[in-house]
C-alpha cells in the first residue's frame, strides 16, 4: 500500500535524522531555517498555552469536557481556552468517530488552523473507527489528517487524555509536527496513491475482462 509500506509513514514523523528535512524546525520563505535554540525557546513557550480547537464529536468529548472541569482541570496547564474558531487554535483534539459526511469538514477545519499545529486523536473511534466498522464511519482520522498523538480508550479517562496532551507538549517543545515543513501531508499522499492504484487496478481488470471477452 502506498509509497513502500505503512511504516514509512511514522518513519517520516518521528525519527531524529529525518527531523532536519521533514517535520523539523520551521523553514522560512527563502529556505532559511530558524536556529534550533530560538525554536526551542519558542516551543517551550508554546507548550504552556496550547489552545485546542473545540472539536468534540461524540462521547470522548464529554471526557474532554471533564478534563476541563475542576477535578482534572486543564486550566492549570494553560489549555482551558478551547477556541471556537480554527484560526485562533493551536491544534485539534479529535474526540469521537468521524463520519464520511463530517470528513471534508474535519479536513477543512484542520487546514484552517494556522501553523504550527498538532493533532491528537482521542479515543478508539478517532484512531481506527473502533467497533463502528460500517458504511459511514472513517476508520481512523489519520486517513484524513496527520496525527501526532493517539490516545486509546473508549472513552479514555481524563487522566489518559492528559497523558496524551503531555506527549503533545513534548512534541511542541521540540517543534516536531506530523506534517513536513513543505506542508505535504503524508497520509493524504498515501491515500492519493492508493486511489490511483485502485483506479489502475480497475482499469486493468476491465482490460483483462475485455480481452477475455474478445477471446471467448
Amino acid at each position: 500500500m502506498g509509497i513502500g509500506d505503512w511504516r514509512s509513514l511514522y518513519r517520516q514523523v518521528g525519527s531524529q535524522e529525518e527531523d532536519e528535512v521533514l517535520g523539523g524546525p520551521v523553514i522560512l520563505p527563502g529556505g532559511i531555517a530558524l536556529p534550533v535554540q530560538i525554536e526551542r525557546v519558542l516551543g517551550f513557550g508554546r507548550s504552556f498555552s496550547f489552545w485546542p480547537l473545540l472539536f468534540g464529536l461524540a462521547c470522548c468529548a464529554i471526557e474532554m469536557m471533564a478534563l476541563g472541569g475542576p477535578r482534572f482541570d486543564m486550566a492549570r496547564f494553560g489549555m482551558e481556552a478551547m477556541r471556537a474558531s480554527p484560526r485562533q487554535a493551536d491544534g485539534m483534539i479529535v474526540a469521537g468517530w468521524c463520519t464520511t459526511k463530517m470528513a471534508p469538514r474535519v479536513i477543512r477545519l484542520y487546514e484552517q488552523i494556522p501553523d504550527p499545529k498538532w493533532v491528537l486523536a482521542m479515543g478508539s473511534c478517532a484512531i481506527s473507527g473502533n467497533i463502528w466498522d460500517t458504511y459511514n464511519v472513517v476508520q481512523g482520522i489519520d486517513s484524513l489528517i496527520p496525527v501526532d498523538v493517539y490516545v486509546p480508550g473508549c472513552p479514555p479517562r481524563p487522566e489518559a487524555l492528559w497523558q496524551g496532551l503531555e506527549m503533545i507538549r513534548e512534541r511542541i517543545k521540540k517543534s516536531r509536527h506530523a506534517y513536513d515543513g513543505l506542508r505535504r501531508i503524508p497520509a493524504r499522499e498515501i491515500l492519493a496513491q492508493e486511489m490511483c492504484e485502485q483506479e489502475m487496478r480497475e482499469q486493468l481488470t476491465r482490460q483483462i475482462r475485455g480481452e477475455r471477452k474478445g477471446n471467448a
Partner: protein
Amino acid sequence: MSEQQVQDRLQEQSTLERRPTSEELKERKARTRRRVPRTGEILTLSMGPQHPSTHGVYRAELDLDGELVVAVRPEIGNLHRGVEKLCEHRTYHQIIPLTDRLDYISSFAMNHAFCEAAEKLMGVEVPPRGRYIRTIAHELSRIANHIMWLGVHVMDLGTQTFFCICFRDREYVLDLFEMLCGARLTHSYSRIGGVAKDLPDGFDYHCRKVIDFIPKRVAEYERIIKHNRIYYKRTKNVGIFTAEDCYAWRVTGPTLRAAGVPRDLRKDEPYAAYDEVEFEVAVEYNADVYDRFLVRMKEIRESCKIIRQCLDNLPDGPFLAPDAGHALPLKKNVLRDPAAMIQDFYQVFHGPQVPKGEVYRAIEVPKGEMGVYIRSEGGPKPARVRFSTPSFYHGQAVPALVEGEMLADVVAIFASVDIVLGDCDR
C-alpha cells in the same frame, strides 16, 4: 428596588402565571414575533456543524429577517454510524455496548431501554434485586444527565463558572458509576435478565452520601440561577411549545412536562422498580425554557428520593435471572459449574434463544421517551432493531420551536430540548 423586593416580585409573577391556557401561550409566542425588529430581507446563516454550543455536530441553516428567525433547515447525520444495521449483525448480548454510545451522557438508560425491550421479547423476568439495582443506576444516570445539561445550558447562555460547578458535582455521580461497573461514561452495566454485577461493598454508604449532597447542590443551583435576573429574562416566555405541538412533533420528556402534561412513562407504563417506589412527576405549565429548567431540577430531587427508597428497600436474591436460554451466567460460576460453562459458551458463541415476533418498548430516559423496536426471526441476532430516540424527534422539532423567535434566543431554546447527536443520528 432591593434584591428582596425583586425576588418577591418574581415569586409573585410565577404564582400568578401558574397555569396559562393554550391561547395565552400562543399569544405570548406571537408577542415575540410582533416585537422583534426586522429588516425585510432574508439573511441565511449557517449554524454548525462545528460551533461552540457543545451539543454535537448539528447543522442548522437559519433564515433571518433582522432578528427574527423565519425558517430553519436542520441537517443531521454528521454522526451517523449505522447502529441499526450493525445490530443486525450482532447478538442481543453484543448489542448492549452499542447502545451505550447512543446517548452517551446517560448511557445506562440506553442499556436499560434495550434490555427492557429484549426481555419483553424473550419473556424474561428480571429478579427483584436486579430491578432495584437497575432503578438505582437509571436514576443516577438521570441525575448525571440533568446536571450536565444544566452546566452546558448555562454555559451556552454565557457563564463558565457554573459549568465547572456542575461538572464537579457530576464527578461524584460518575464516581458512583465507576464503583458500580468500572466505567465513568459508557457503562454497559445492564444485561438481559438483570445487571452485570452486584452492588459492591460500601456502595450503600457512598451512594447515600451523594444523594444527601445532591439536593443541597440543587438548592444552590436554584439560588444562583432561578432568581437570576439575566437567566429569567433570557428564558421566560422563550421557546414556548404547547402540549399540542409536543404531541404533533413527538416531543417528550421534560419539554412535554413543562407544557403541563403529566406524562411520565415511569408512572404510566412502569418498568424496573418504579411501581414500588413513590415519587412525583415534575410538571410545570408555562412551556418555556425556564420551566424546562424547573422541571429538570425537580426531577433531580425526585431521583434522589427514588434512589433512597430503593436503597432502603433493596431486596436480597439474585441480580441476574437464572435463565439459561436467555441470560448469561454469573461469572463466578462459569469456571466451576459445568452447566454455567455450557450456558456461557452457548450465550457468547451462539446467542440467546429468541421467539419469532416483534416488540416495541418505550421507557422514560432522561431526555424523553425512548422506544426500542425489535423484530426477530427466531435467531440469536435480531432482524431489525430501531431505536426511536428522543433527540431524533427533538432535532426535528427545532424548526417548530425556533421559528418566530429571536436569533439571540436560538441557543437557549436549542439547549433546553436537550439534543445529543449520538442519540439523534445513531
